[in-house]
């Protein structure tokens, strides 16, 4: 495979653009946020593209009104503002309302985690997994590459519910050749089967996880890897079946940990079924990242760079052996 780099947003919007050429029921709304492919949407579908201005609350409210009239709506903005500035609009007009009416509204948030690294903590979005996972009737998707993102765009036409797509801001290399609708319905992809140790990662962190898995492999450790494409809903039984034979499960997320994110989601599944596994959640601790620098630098500071992760896995493995 030639691992070509591409932004998730361009891959996603390209699919929407293609669909808009034959489906008049699609509206694309932006809170004054763009992309190169979006320029085509703006030019060719000026009657179904609306820039609401820097007004995320109104972005969601207008989207709600359009969805009530039967349109498929995309609401596009920088991730932290899309979900947190408009959190109550998302709660009342999407989450609550969708329990009583069919609404196909798609929140497309760019800049998950710290992908806007040097913009600082106002533009980081380390809260989104926990915040959006708490909302009933929402689907939360967290793709790791543009191929999965493209598949999610197709998924968005078919599944008529409110959805949040947490997209990375940076062009990232391709992981998948193809992702099918069935893959997305399953919600996760088993990138590697391992023995004893398994990583469960999502979004950008799956790239880190692949580095870790490869390095462990060089050291003779066969580590498994699950890529969580959907954070919600979770196919709990299938996730458990996939994880139950491991002795050690580690979640990796570019998000706060111990606050209801991916770590909590996986831990709940294991706990509910009284799994006999050691568990560790890796991600960002309970502080914002004011330090400046690129992602690699910030990962080092927060001890989630590849070497730190490797060391923590090895330490834990030793502790696990010691505990026995």
């Amino acid at each position, binding site marked *: 495979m030639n691992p070509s780099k591409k932004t998730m947003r361009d891959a996603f919007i390209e699919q929407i653009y293609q669909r808009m050429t034959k489906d008049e029921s699609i*509206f694309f709304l932006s809170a004054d946020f763009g992309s190169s492919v979006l320029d085509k949407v703006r030019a060719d579908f000026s*009657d*179904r593209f*609306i820039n*609401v*201005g820097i*007004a995320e*609350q*109104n972005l*969601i*409210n*207008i*989207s*709600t*009104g*359009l*969805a*009530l*009239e*039967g*349109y498929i709506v995309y609401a596009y903005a920088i991730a932290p503002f899309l979900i947190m500035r408009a959190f*109550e*609009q998302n709660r*009342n*007009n999407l989450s*609550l*309302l969708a329990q*009583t*009416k069919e609404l196909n509204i798609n929140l497309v948030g760019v800049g998950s985690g710290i992908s806007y690294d040097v913009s600082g903590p106002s533009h980081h979005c380390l809260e989104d997994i926990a915040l959006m996972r708490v909302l009933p009737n929402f689907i939360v998707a967290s793709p790791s590459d543009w191929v999965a993102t493209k598949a999610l765009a197709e998924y968005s036409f078919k599944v008529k519910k409110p959805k949040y797509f947490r997209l990375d801001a940076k062009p990232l290399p391709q992981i998948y050749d193809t992702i099918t609708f069935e893959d997305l319905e399953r919600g996760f992809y088993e990138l590697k089967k391992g023995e004893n140790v398994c990583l469960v990662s999502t979004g950008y962190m799956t790239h880190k996880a692949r580095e870790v898995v490869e390095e462990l492999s060089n050291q003779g450790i066969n580590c498994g890897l699950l890529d969580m494409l959907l954070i919600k809903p979770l196919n709990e039984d299938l996730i458990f079946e996939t994880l139950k034979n491991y002795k050690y499960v580690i979640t990796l997320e570019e998000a706060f940990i111990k606050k209801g994110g991916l770590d909590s989601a996986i831990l709940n599944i294991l706990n509910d079924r009284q799994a006999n596994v050691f568990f560790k959640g890796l991600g960002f601790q309970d502080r914002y990242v004011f330090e400046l620098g690129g992602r690699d630098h910030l990962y080092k500071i927060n001890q989630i760079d590849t070497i730190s992760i490797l060391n923590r896995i090895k330490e834990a493995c030793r502790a696990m052996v010691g505990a026995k």
Partner: protein
Amino acid sequence: MQPNFLVEKSNWVRKETLKVHKLAPETRIASSLSSVELFVALYYGKVLKYDPTNLRAEDRDRLIVSKGHGSICLYPILADLGFFDKKELLTVCKEGSFLGGIPDTLIPGYETINGSLGHGLGVASGVAIGLKRKNRLESVFVVLGDGELYEGSVWEAVMFAGYHKLDNLILIIDNNKICMLDYCSKILDLTPLADKFKAFGWMTQEVDGHNPAVMQEVLLKAKKDRNSKPKLIIAQTKKGKGVPKLENDSLCHVRSLSAQEVDALVEESSL
């Protein structure tokens, strides 16, 4: 239509609303008494096109009640017009009922989730633009309280609707001048209110919100007037209208009436 028909309906609705409040003292009675005539004009004045047998009919006018808590007076109207059985009015706020203290989409006739203020105008603007895109001629009515205007999201929508020339959008402000804790003029005075909307490209009109015939006339005209401007109708109302004890109380929003008080009021023919 008899000239007194709307007045009589208003009196009936006010009494029925009080009866609901007697059974469900959790309901916001003062807010629901200021909006009686505007809902009477919409429903009985043949302003709003509706079909209780087909709630999703494409050719219905849309009504979004952003001040949901202050629309308990709409319950007897909807029951009277066949949206649901009248006996349901006896169940408001009771276990198993779909008629809560704050209405939502489980009630036939309500289009949106209400309760949190400041959402309705934006949602209505989205509906309005969706109707225009479909080349449909129906109107979108939205009812806000004046206290709700403090929510910033309202003004995001005011800007939006004006710029997008949503002339199928009619905003009725139930200008009862009292918030939860005090008179609005003592919290943040928004006068001159109409000028603020005019500056954003709206057409505005102030009317006596307790004169249903005038409300009807103004609403019908606003509905017909497709002049590239969204319409604002400021209904000058009195919070707690019809109940002297509430009318002059800055804290009337949180007041409930006792069963005896309701009985006495319902007995009075002057209500």
